[in-house]
């Protein structure tokens, strides 16, 4: 028996009406793999971060085959087509590989830990909630995750973008006390706003250090001290706004990633 909504859709299809609901049952998008879990004997449930449809799960038939397994490794960019009869169903993905990164990433422990941390961060996002800017930032990060010089700095910037995407962006443009845009070296843990050197000096043990690379683009890669300060800053606000309210703590992999990136003092 055909239920009411399905009949409407069928009628719409027959009449050639392009309603948004119809389009959502069958879409294609760019994505990267966050993880997979086995389903049945040969299938997997793929968790993918898609550009226009957010974090999305779907069944991949034959996902554990020899051909599909290398493609469905975390960190790989893929083109996905999702299909379902109803919008709230799990649906099925068909997958095609676009950029294979897993082979590169598994060679470096720090890159693997960075990947695990990135996936944990992205799992905080609501399912099927699109975040195209965050997707672009995450993909750029994945491209450089195995670069020991640039990767950690990009990671801290990504965490800053993640906070902003959740509505907890830090205001690092001007000093909260004087309004100046010069010599901003602290962040207030209470307001998340930058504080310049002079008004911040008396409270420097209570303020969080603001490294330069989080404030402005620089040609020089940040040193280990700046990276550690950057991660301390983002870690504080990630815990405060995203992890603690969900009764979670920052992923263990993050601390291990920082340890291997030479910024172990940040957490």
């Amino acid at each position: 028996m055909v239920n009411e909504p399905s009949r409407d859709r069928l009628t719409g299809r027959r009449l050639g009406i392009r309603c948004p609901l119809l389009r959502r049952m069958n879409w294609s998008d760019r994505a990267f793999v966050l993880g997979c879990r086995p389903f049945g004997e040969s299938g997997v449930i793929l968790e993918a971060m898609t550009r226009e449809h957010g974090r999305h799960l779907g069944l991949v038939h034959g996902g554990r085959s020899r051909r599909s397994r290398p493609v469905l490794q975390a960190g790989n960019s893929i083109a996905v087509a999702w299909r379902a009869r109803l919008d709230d169903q799990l649906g099925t993905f068909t997958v095609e590989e676009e950029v294979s990164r897993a082979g590169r990433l598994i060679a470096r422990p720090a890159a693997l830990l960075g990947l695990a941390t990135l996936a944990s961060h992205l799992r905080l996002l609501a399912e099927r909630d699109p975040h195209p800017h965050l997707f672009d930032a995450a993909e750029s990060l994945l491209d450089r995750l195995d670069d020991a010089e640039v990767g950690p700095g990009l990671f801290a910037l990504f965490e800053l973008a993640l906070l902003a995407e959740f509505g907890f962006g830090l205001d690092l443009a001007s000093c909260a006390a004087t309004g100046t845009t010069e010599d901003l070296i602290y962040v207030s843990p209470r307001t998340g706003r930058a504080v310049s050197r002079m008004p911040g000096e008396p409270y420097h043990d209570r303020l969080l250090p603001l490294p330069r690379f989080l404030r402005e683009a620089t040609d020089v890669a940040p040193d280990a001290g700046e990276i550690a300060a950057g991660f301390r800053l983002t870690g504080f606000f990630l815990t405060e706004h995203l992890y603690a309210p969900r009764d979670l703590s920052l992923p263990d992999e993050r601390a291990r990633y920082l340890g291997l990136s030479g910024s172990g003092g940040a957490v």
Partner: protein
Amino acid sequence: MAQTIAGPEIERLIQLLARLPGLGPRSARRAALHLIGRREQLLGPLADALAVARERITVCSACGNVDTSDPCTICRDPSRDPAIIVVVEGVSDLWALERAGAIRAGYHVLGGVLSPLDGVRPEHLSLDSLVARAGRPETKELILALSATVDGQTTAHYVTELVRHLPVTVTRLAHGVPIGGELDYLDEGTLTAALRQRTPF
């Protein structure tokens, strides 16, 4: 609803067979009919074998292998090199390596790999016993024979960190072109790994 065509005992046999990997309801029905048709030659011995297996199968307290004795046959084998421990994810991997017969060493079955998505954390794996075995004076090398997947290699790096303070050499299986593999059919990740790990020829 499908009509029941056999008694509850046969239906139960079919249902249980259908739970085995590779068997669906239709093939389970065929297998059940095959067993029923060879009651004396197959069904009886199979039932006996299953009953004995159920009674005797145990997990080796040393390596995590399944066998009918503890320690298992492999751990008791004096011809194996006690200096080498091959770390595997599951018993099926151990059996695969034994089939290959490429190494005469001891094993350690982790019981899975770290997987944040499935909630598999270090405390779910037999890592403490591995560290204890790696710390014994006779142990010289750990071979991490884990899958070339993100989860498998994350676990491999985690194990490496755990035993870093011990005087053991940690090695892992090479990643690259499989025997009989043609380059144009290989995925980019495998090709990248194969090129990176090229050897003098």
